[in-house]
């Protein structure tokens, strides 16, 4: 059983009477502990694919397996639960709550998990913030933080529920090259040290090359599952044969 598997996923949007097919039969497997970059031009369907993998959207047809569960037929509430427990999101524009301290921003997802006391939630948020190197910025509001620090708060927020899978949508899009490297290094470290599977959407080849595997998507289909000229390639091959089967 693969960690994550997409089987022949189609997504069609209906705008009035016109059908707009965005994903045209995507099949893909990602093993636990992989770091994958999802590349493609705008309009190629990479965001739609990420939304489906991130349980924000449902495929029109096809199957989506995550950790042995088929998720494509879940209700909205069930998907919210999956997002809360098993997925983390990092966005291009950070999406932090304004005028809210870093600690509260990070603890926010925990308010939707009812089994944690307030004190435990704050403690957990603190731990994660320490891990991303912001132990001295707990009470700072987003406006008092630099872009890199804001993105680190966002990463901490994504990690607070200890999800096995992390999605990053253009995580360095709003950052300068120096901080971008920092953030990417942090992803790499999370991937290698904590075994968190990371799927990163980007259009920047430079950024994509930090991943060990790059998936190109073009016009709704995966064109290749290129693997990195990296030493550890063994685990990546799994995705290859299904990558461009359409």
């Amino acid at each position, binding site marked *: 059983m693969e960690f994550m598997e997409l089987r022949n996923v189609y997504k069609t949007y209906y705008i009035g009477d016109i059908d707009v097919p965005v994903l045209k039969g995507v099949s893909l497997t990602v093993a636990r502990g992989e770091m994958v970059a999802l590349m493609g031009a705008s309009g190629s369907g990479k965001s739609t694919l990420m939304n489906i993998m991130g349980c924000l959207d449902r495929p029109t047809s096809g199957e989506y397996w995550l950790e042995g569960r088929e998720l494509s037929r879940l209700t909205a509430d069930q998907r*919210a639960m999956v997002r*809360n427990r098993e997925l983390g999101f990092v966005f291009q524009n950070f*999406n932090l709550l304004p005028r809210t301290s870093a600690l509260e921003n990070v603890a*926010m997802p925990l308010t939707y998990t009812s089994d944690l006391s307030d004190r435990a939630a704050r403690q957990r948020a603190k731990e994660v913030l320490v891990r991303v190197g912001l132990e001295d910025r707990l009470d700072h509001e987003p406006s008092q933080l630099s872009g890199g620090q804001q993105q680190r708060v966002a990463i901490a927020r994504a990690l607070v529920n200890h999800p096995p899978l992390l999605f990053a949508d253009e995580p360095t899009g709003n950052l300068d090259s120096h901080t971008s490297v920092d953030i990417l290094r942090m992803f790499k470290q999370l991937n290698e040290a904590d075994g968190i599977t990371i799927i990163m959407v980007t259009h920047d080849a430079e950024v994509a090359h930090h991943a060990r595997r790059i998936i190109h998507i073009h016009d709704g289909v995966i064109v290749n599952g290129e693997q990195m000229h990296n030493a550890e390639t063994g685990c990546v091959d799994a995705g290859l044969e299904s990558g461009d089967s359409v």
Partner: protein
Amino acid sequence: MKVYRTIRTALKALRRNPMRALLTTLGIVIGVAAVIAMMEIGTGSSAAVQKSISSMGANVVLVMPGTATSSGISFGSGSVTTLTPDDAAAIQRECPAVKAVAPAVRARVQIVYGNRNWVPSSMYGTTPAFLEIRDWTIVDGDPFTERDVLNANKVCLIGQTLVRELFDGASPVGKEIRLKNVAFRVVGVLGRKGANMMGMDQDDIVLAPWTTIKYRVTGSSLQNTNQSAASATSSTVNTLSNLYPGGQPSLYPQQSEAQMADTPMPVRFANVDQVLVTARSSVEIPAAIDQMTALLHERHHVREGESDDFTIRDMTEMSNTLSSTTRLMTNLLLCVAMISLVVGGVGIMNIMLVSVTERTREIGLRMSVGARARDILRQFLVEAVVLCLVGGAVGILLGHGGSLLVRMLLRWPVQTSPTAIAAAVIVSAGVGLLFGWWPAYKASRLDPIEALRYE
């Protein structure tokens, strides 16, 4: 997601924009303040009306003798002489809904003190229970006693107006005044009651034992002393008038002057002009009336189908009229206040809609980290309710302050009304729920992908 967490989240969200929250809730503040002030002033004036009614005697029921008719000629209310002090005693004894009973005879005579004289508008011969029934206090001296009544002692209580007119405000206790040439010792002074609802001066009054008034002053034991009938016989000390009006033969042989002087009270029974009764509570008034009616039927041998020889009146109609007037005014003002609450609610809805649009990205983010639609719905709903409740609390304080100000500056009667406060809290929460629901529902229906992409 626990409720207190939702409330805290809502408070945090509101604190992010305190000025706007303040302005938004202003409508509710004004509405609730208006409701509270109206209710307090309304209940205050209601209570004032109740007080003025009870100054005429709380829950007082009046038993009057009925109408005498002879040869088809009616002599008007109070013209039969069948109501006796024994009736009063029986009512006290046998009617459980009755708290106190006082028989009363009325007189209208001139009072002389030194070189001054005065004719009080009311002069009652009664028992000490009268004071209890009319809820009257003695401010100087003591009331007369049951013993005074039994002995027909020449003592009396006088009202404030008499103190002013006869004594120039000096203490009259222990002084002697003359009622139709009979010397009475003033034993006490009644407290001030002011004018009654009809504009009559209630302090222009003399109270004395009914036996004294009946046998020594009006001096006509069998005659109806109602109205000024007594003045006709003022020249003699004691006279037996005709028992039946209309020139019918006298029941007893006419006595000579000497005989009459020898036997001052040659009567079998004495009638009274009215019996004042007070019920145990205002709700027991109808029961008291029923019990008295039954009792008096029995005592007066009124058979089925015969007309009563007495009438019973109570003041509920008058008090109902007055309190319904004030209630109407209060309700009208409440309606106006409610309209301002609705306007405030629309303001809340407006701002919540703006807030939902403005925070679309936040909603998308919350959904992407696992908030369900109902979590979002609840968050915005609670925000609206918290906003309204805070507005309600401020409104309660403002309204209460306003009514206190009215009391201080205009000297209007004001009464704190816990019902109004409870209603204000419930109504403001209700306004929050009602007008917060649509924006919250709109927020919860957002698509997380769209919401996250919203600029």
